[in-house]
């Protein structure tokens, strides 16, 4: 079963992201959440999801560091950054870290479709490769 982890310290933002994830037509999709960076890192390393929707400005540990440490620990899933941090320098830093998508908040209108496109593409690619 494909699994998506949503990481955001705002319960409202997690709910908005969950609506988008659950709107994707992927059979058996499991969605879980983390509200801070430390819990996110644990989730990504202990029971790795296929895809993470990752906020960057997080309590406990910044999203950059979550991703860096998760990769170092062997996490190979897809990561779509969903952030209010709209700096070009942040986007460049995320490109260097090899994220699979970068969507800026707020999650309304066109950004909903942008996130949904990333999710569809990555989750369908995973389906085409089999459960692995």
């Amino acid at each position, binding site marked *: 079963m494909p699994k998506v982890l949503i990481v955001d310290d705002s319960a*409202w933002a997690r709910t908005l992201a969950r609506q988008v994830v659950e709107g994707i037509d992927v059979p058996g999709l499991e969605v879980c959440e983390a509200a801070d960076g430390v819990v996110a890192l644990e989730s990504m390393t202990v029971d790795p999801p296929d895809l993470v929707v990752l906020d960057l400005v*997080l309590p406990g540990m910044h999203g950059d560091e979550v991703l860096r440490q998760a990769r170092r620990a062997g996490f190979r899933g897809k990561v779509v950054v969903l952030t209010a941090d709209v700096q070009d320098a942040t986007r460049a830093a995320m490109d260097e870290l090899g994220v699979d998508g970068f969507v800026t908040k707020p999650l309304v209108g066109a950004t909903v479709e942008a996130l949904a496109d990333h999710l569809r593409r990555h989750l369908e690619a995973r389906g085409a490769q089999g459960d692995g």
Partner: protein
Amino acid sequence: MVEFSARQKDVLTEVVNLGMGRAAASLSRLTGDRILLEVPRVEILPLAQLDDHLGEVADQEVCSVLQVFEGEVAGDAILFLPLPSARNLLELLVGRPMALTRFSELEQAALMEVGNIVINACLGSLANLLKTRFSFLVPHVAVQSLRPMLRGDGRRDDPNRICLLVESRFRVKSRAVDGYLAIVVGVASARALASAVDRLLTATVGSWTP
């Protein structure tokens, strides 16, 4: 005092996050470096308690930028930076060391522009999501202690006047900048703000509770 529920506070905190992200993008363009944001702390409290809540910060000289805004929700937005943070920020902006306590007219103008950027980014995000519009009056910059400034405002002790206080920290290279944004509104605006947040919640997530 108008009370805000946990879910209303969650939404307001996220909206402030959006604003700080936009402000950071502008500051990043000005400094040429990436701004590393930390999670802002957001509190809603009676204005009369603001100086005590801030503790020693209220007694220190701070660089403050005051901007009055009008609209469905109207009030005062005050960005204040402890002087070491104001100095760090100026050094990042102009690229040379600054005196700790004295700012030239040009330096004050630079700080006012930063205040203008941060206040407009936060209130702009709030206005966009709440489908309202704020008009901004000309900002004022001052270097003074906060407590006398707050106590000199005759409206401070109005029990219905509330303050949405954002405590923010960001880093550029190895420098930290601490800043506070106080959005002060009266009872009618507080009610209008709470109603607008409820409309946003209904439109986006229905009857969700955190």
